[in-house]
């Protein structure tokens, strides 16, 4: 239980940067990292209660943050999504 509580400030730091960040790339990287930290928290909850299906959610969160970061990077480079 204690590792989950220690990880919550990490997600809050990412949230602070996502709200505060001066450029759009700051927000993009902060949201990407927040997805990865949430996938770690989900894995720890799955370990705590021995629920193996929660790790499917963890993998899905990692996939979604990866695809979102790639789409935002393409937008920042000034290209369209089907380029």
């Amino acid at each position, binding site marked *: 239980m204690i*590792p989950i509580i*220690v*990880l919550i*400030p*990490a*997600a809050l*730091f*990412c949230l*602070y*940067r996502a709200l505060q*960040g001066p*450029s*759009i*790339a*700051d927000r*993009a*990287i*902060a949201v*990407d*990292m927040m997805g*990865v*930290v949430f*996938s*770690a928290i989900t*894995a*720890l909850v*799955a*370990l705590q209660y*021995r629920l*193996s299906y929660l*790790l*499917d959610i*963890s*993998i899905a969160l*990692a*996939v979604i*943050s*990866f695809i979102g*970061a*790639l789409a*935002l*990077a*393409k*937008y*920042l*480079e*000034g290209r369209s999504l089907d380029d």
Partner: protein
Amino acid sequence: MISALALISLWLGVIFVLLGALGLARFPDIYNRMQAATKCVTLGVCGIMLGVFLKTGFSALGIKALICALFILVTVPVSSHALARGSLIAGVKLWKGTVKDKFTEDRGGKSIIEEEK
């Protein structure tokens, strides 16, 4: 023995993730933040997943944790590289204490180091 290894790996991962997120909140410009966040969070989350795998062994939980660790190990560097390149091309300024800016030197453009105020 295995249980102690699992605890060590899990706690190392948690500390790495916490310090990486602290760097993301505190460093001065986006490239520094990106370095702190992506490196530490990748290693930390992989440590946490390895700890889950060592604690549960070859069960459904452990195998899924191993797959998730491999996926994160491959994809987070790719996405951070793409975001760093995108923000350089979009013209996000470097911090004013930056010493060297090889990217614009090679391209022969105007430097993107932030001006001293």
